[in-house]
């Protein structure tokens, strides 16, 4: 029942690049994307917003428009506003669009589901007024909303990017409470050779830091014991910096300590994943073309391991070459000829990664939260609950889920999964790979029963 040669899930840089390359090579492609307009997180809504706020968001953002243009191809069916809730063997993709269930199918599928912000469970992080830096950026990109009196907490390039964007918009953050330490930087220096090959990134980073410094935003690197205070809403961030306790009043707190691959769709298909120690997250096991150990399932972009927008685009093109070759549209020689320059560009893009990973590691205090801290927001489960369930014999997150309800809520475990695995691994003295991850099942995103019922179905037998 194939409807297309290739289905692409996600219209960020990887998905858009894959689709346009595959279409150029003669394949019919369907691109399903949750957002109303193409661009993914990094180029969110770029076709509309570039003209409105391009000056604040910067040139890296506005150039996303060249990718969205590539989707205007007669062999590409771009389906925006599509919430994919099941992907099954075949590959049959079930999704909802404008309140109606629908399906498409293809022999090959490319998952370009990108990254999620790593959750940052700190005391007080569930208070109103606290959100991820990415959520803050979405408000800025989509609606032009800027938070006044906001503190930025965490580390990493995105934190500097949003700080720089806030400075440009005339509402600089009240403080940057940064979790990376001096020794992180020293350790990272070992990777500086690689970072130099990725010099454009380093230059960009330095430029952003200069903007932040010029705006006299107070910075507190190496902060520890970070807590968000407040009763009904966030009122302040308290922390220790260079041995001294600080308390900074604010009304909004943006948290960020890196991004991690969104592996839900891949896991629901049974793709094997491995713990990536350098990035403290799970990443799918892929060959050099982005093909997983489930035949026909390709993964490109940050969902395959964090590499950034440019690397995502290149990985998408490489996957498209392989799909075209497998579909008989390209000889292996031609595939390899076209792949060579893409591969060296991809390697250049990834060169700065080990430096960044080491310079801005996730905040240790949020990887192993104190017992009282909530780690599953949907079901209000604390770190102490999970540790207690390890004592009750839970070796992995699926047992802990049954005991605690962590991972049972509407987010399907996206936001607590890595924390639960890490807590259990530490409590049981096992590795992350041994501990494993939630068994991910449909619905990948909530869907109404009414939408489900409109699709073709088998009659249930209600006999006990």
């Amino acid at each position, binding site marked *: 029942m194939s409807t297309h040669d290739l289905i692409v899930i996600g219209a960020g840089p990887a998905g858009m690049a894959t689709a346009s390359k595959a279409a150029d090579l003669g394949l019919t492609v369907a691109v399903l994307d949750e957002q109303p307009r193409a661009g993914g997180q990094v180029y969110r809504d770029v076709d509309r917003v570039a003209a409105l706020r391009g000056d604040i968001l910067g040139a890296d953002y506005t150039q996303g428009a060249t990718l969205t243009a590539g989707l205007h191809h007669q062999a590409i069916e771009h389906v925006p506003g599509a919430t994919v809730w099941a992907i099954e063997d075949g590959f049959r993709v079930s999704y909802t669009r404008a309140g109606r269930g629908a399906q498409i199918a293809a022999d090959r599928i490319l998952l370009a589901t990108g990254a999620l912000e790593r959750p940052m469970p700190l005391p007080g992080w569930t208070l109103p007024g606290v959100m991820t830096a990415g959520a803050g950026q979405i408000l800025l990109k989509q609606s032009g909303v800027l938070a006044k009196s906001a503190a930025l907490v965490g580390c990493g390039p995105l934190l500097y990017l949003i700080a720089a964007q806030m400075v440009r918009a005339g509402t600089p953050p009240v403080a940057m409470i940064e979790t990376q330490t001096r020794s992180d930087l020293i350790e990272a220096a070992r990777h500086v050779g690689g970072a130099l090959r990725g010099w454009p990134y380093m230059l960009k980073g330095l430029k952003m830091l200069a903007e932040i410094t010029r705006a006299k935003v107070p910075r507190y690197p190496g902060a520890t014991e970070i807590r968000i205070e407040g009763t009904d809403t966030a009122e302040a961030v308290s922390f220790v910096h260079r041995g001294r306790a600080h308390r900074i009043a604010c009304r909004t707190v943006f948290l960020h300590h890196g991004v991690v691959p969104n592996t839900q769709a891949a896991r629901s298909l049974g793709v094997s994943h491995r713990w990536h120690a350098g990035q403290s997250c799970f990443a799918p096991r892929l060959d050099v073309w982005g093909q997983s150990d489930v035949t026909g399932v390709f993964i490109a972009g940050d969902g395959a391991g964090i590499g950034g927008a440019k690397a995502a685009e290149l990985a998408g093109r490489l996957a498209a070459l392989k799909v075209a070759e497998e579909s008989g549209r390209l000889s292996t020689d031609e595939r390899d000829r076209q792949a060579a320059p893409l591969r060296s560009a991809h390697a250049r893009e990834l060169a700065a990664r080990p430096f960044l990973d080491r310079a801005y590691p996730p905040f240790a205090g949020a990887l192993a939260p104190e017992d009282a801290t909530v780690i599953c927001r949907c079901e209000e489960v604390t770190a102490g609950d999970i540790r207690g369930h390890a004592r009750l014999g839970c070796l992995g997150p699926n047992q802990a889920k049954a005991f605690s309800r962590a991972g049972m809520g509407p987010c399907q475990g996206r936001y607590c999964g890595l924390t639960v695995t890490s807590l259990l691994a530490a409590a049981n003295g096992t590795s992350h790979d041994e501990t494993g991850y939630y068994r991910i099942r449909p619905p990948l995103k909530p869907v109404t029963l009414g939408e*489900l019922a409109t699709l073709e179905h*088998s009659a249930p037998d209600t006999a006990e």
Partner: protein
Amino acid sequence: METEYAIIGGGVVGLSVAWGLLKRGLTVTVLDGDDGSFRASRGNFGLVWVQSKGMNQPRYARWSQQSAAIWAEFAEELGHNTGQPVPLEQKGGYDLHFSEATLEATVAKYNDLKTKLDGDYPFEVLGHNALRKEEPQIGPKVVGAILHHQDGHANPLKLLKSLAADVRRMGGRVLTGKTVTDVTKPDGFRLACADGTTVGAGKVVLSAGLGAAALGPKLAFRAPVRPQRGQVLITEKLPKLINRPSLIARQVDEGGIQIGATNEEVGTDDRVTQPGLSGLAAEAIAAYPALARAQLVRSWGALRVLSPDGLPIYQESAEFPGAYLVTCHSGITLAAAHARLLPDWLEATKAAPDLEVFSETRFAVS
């Protein structure tokens, strides 16, 4: 001897038996699998159910009734011991019908069974209007229901958790991440695990669910159990919508509506399928139309542990006395019986329940 009893399988069945034995002061070691094991204990529907059970074997109906009758005090004791209540509601349950013909046929069978049970089978038939008074959200396609007053439902995950906690509290030794690969009886029983662990035990209870099929023959059991997949849905938490449970849907104590279940012979494939989920959704909406707007938040497939006739198997090994096979499909319903009544059978006391009809010799080739 390290332990008087070794229990192979740490699901609801194994832990219920372990709990009952520990309460009698016996020493117990439970060998449990890992995070990826097939676990009916965390995939089941959570009914404490009497109606429709044992239509052809009144003893099974009676056994289910016995368990249901002592479930509340069992749950109460677990909750008291662990500080973790096990939610249970026993105010009856429905068998919903979409056609007069199936309703009448079922009522006729229930009446037969009622006679065999000396009249102890309290059910009533509700027509659409009477049902609507009880369940205002019921849909027009439901022609009526059988309301059985001995039915109810529990929170099966909280039962599992409380059992896990209380077995440990009472001194039960629980070894996790174990796959038992061999059982021998040189003197006492000797259990060998894949990771090299060995356990010596005076008696062995094989309650490993589907795992019994492979391990049973080592103890001279036939253990004819097979998997049958059930797909289950659960919605977002909702205000009170359903008062009493049925096989189609129940509202759990946390507020979600649980919808079940398919019956599929697909081996050990425990995935869900879109046609399966859609079929369940359509049926639930036919029963309760308001559910069309409810969000599905989770679905799963779990494998029932079924014997050829669907009834439990309680069997002591003829060749290896002291080894017992305990397996059933309805581990939640029967949890109270397994915890409070089965130890008498294992210990062969005067109070031992008569479980002769559940012997696996009933499957012997004649």
